[in-house]
């Protein structure tokens, strides 16, 4: 497996308080990694650690195979583009001048690149505009920040709350841009967000973080299997019920729960119930419900808080 980022027990403490606690993340090349967690869970701190803005107190990480303590990390960082918390832009400069500054910093000398990048993020209206970034709306600044992250043709883009301040049309544009860049150029993304439904439209993998710890890493396919329709069946002989269901369903869709034996996903309830009855087992209760991604996330957080 070719990894863009791998962390090994990555930890960060502030005044003896663990903000990031032994985090192990694996982001493969080409992934769109949705980074989910409540406020103060440590998402931005992890992004700061990866981008080199802060140093870890413990653990390590590898960026494109380069360890964070090795000199190669500086070349690896050249492959990333990032927005950390708020877009880092020169407030007293126009959008084009901001990109020119970023080009200078990266040693890129192309006016065409500036124009195409501004067009790519939907800022074509300000290409020749002298208006300073300080006069931009929050959404425009966000787009400009994304444009700056895209400038050096990065292989890995880290976006911390990229949808903040964007209007619905802007959210759709950025989402399409992410999917386009990922599809066409195989660019890896790490996107942190609170808006789970929005993330679910792009993410191929999720990292769910709570209190500085990754409580679950899950692929979008696995998540879809765990969410959606669920059927909890309680029978007089649970073991016998499970054995019967294993003959009809994939193991990954079945689990023991306090509510009974759970079947994830769509079920032909009539035929399942007929099979159970004909096997001689007594059905005590059947409950069908739907789980949204939010429900799943909240149930995970509930579990994490419980732990």
């Amino acid at each position: 497996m070719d990894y863009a980022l791998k962390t090994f027990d990555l930890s960060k403490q502030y005044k003896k308080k663990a903000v990031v606690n032994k985090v192990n993340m694996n982001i493969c090349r080409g992934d769109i990694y949705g980074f989910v967690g409540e406020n103060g869970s440590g998402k931005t701190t992890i992004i700061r650690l990866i981008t080199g803005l802060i140093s870890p107190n413990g653990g390590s990480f590898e960026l494109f195979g380069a360890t964070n303590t090795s000199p190669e990390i500086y070349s690896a960082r050249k492959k990333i583009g990032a927005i950390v918390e708020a877009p880092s832009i020169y407030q007293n400069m126009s959008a084009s001048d901001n990109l020119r500054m970023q080009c200078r910093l990266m040693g890129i000398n192309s006016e065409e690149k500036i124009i195409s990048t501004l067009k790519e993020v939907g800022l074509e209206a300000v290409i020749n505009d002298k208006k300073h970034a300080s006069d931009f709306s929050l959404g425009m600044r966000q787009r400009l920040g994304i444009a700056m992250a895209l400038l050096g043709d990065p292989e890995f883009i880290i976006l911390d709350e990229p949808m903040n301040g964007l209007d619905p049309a802007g959210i759709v544009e950025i989402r399409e841009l992410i999917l386009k860049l990922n599809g066409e150029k195989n660019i890896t993304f790490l996107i942190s967000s609170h808006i789970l439904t929005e993330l679910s439209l792009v993410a191929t993998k999720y990292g769910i973080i709570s209190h500085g710890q990754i409580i679950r890493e899950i692929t979008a396919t696995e998540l879809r299997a765990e969410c959606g329709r669920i059927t909890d069946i309680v029978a007089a002989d649970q073991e016998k019920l499970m054995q019967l269901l294993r003959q009809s369903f994939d193991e990954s869709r079945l689990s023991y729960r306090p509510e009974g034996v759970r079947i994830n996903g769509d079920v032909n309830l009539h035929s399942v119930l007929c099979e159970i009855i004909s096997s001689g087992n007594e059905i005590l209760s059947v409950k069908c419900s739907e789980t949204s991604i939010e429900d799943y996330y909240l149930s995970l957080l509930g579990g994490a808080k419980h732990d």
Partner: protein
Amino acid sequence: MINLLKTDLIRVFKDKLFLVLGIIGVAFALFTPIVSRILLFGLELDPSDMAEIVPMTAKSMFFSSFSLSNNFGLIVPILVTIILCKDFSHGTIRNKIICGNRRWQIFLSLFISGTVAMFAAILAHALLTLGVSVLLFKYQAEPFTASDLGYFLLSVLFEAIVYAYVASITAFLCAWAKNSGVAIVCFIAILLISTIVGSISTMALMLIIPEENETAYNVWNFLSRINIFVNAQIGNGRSYSTEDVLYILLPPLCFGAITVLSGLFIFNKKDLK
């Protein structure tokens, strides 16, 4: 490193505050010699009459323009500190780190661009002051010779070294405080303490008779001469002795090296938001 330096220099020189600095510099360069001339004219004095009290020559005006206790000499580091600190307040310092630059390169670029900006501003101001002053006063009481040109150029080089030291302090304060307000307050505090120490040492030198208390005199003399913020050893003669050169060069070079190394150390360890 070159890309970083280019970016920083363009950022500093394109900043509106730098334009404001230029306007203030021009105003002071015109104002100071003209007002001095008017005052002398009002008092019906010839500049040569003042020579023993305050040497009223274009040369003295030029070199006093560099003084850090002058109005413009104080404004330059303050405004340049604000400009340098914008990288931290706007968060654009993050772009430099994310781009794969090493922290020492970022700090050195901050220091070098600060030095260039400060010295460019003060030199332009001093040259304009000189230009206006030579129209109103003589360059110096004695005729200008080739050795005076050498002395002039050497003095300008010494001033550049002093301003590099000042820039090292501002770069250190920016990296440490990450905030222009705190950096400026600290810079003014350093300047104030140095000025007070300088005044005390000057007073002590006036009170102590060298023959009676040679050790105390030497200590105060040393403290006075290494005080970069108050001493005016540069440009007040026609040649430099070896002792002069050592007193002019060693304090800014030693203190500057210490400040730069401390800045590099602090910035290397600093967590950035």
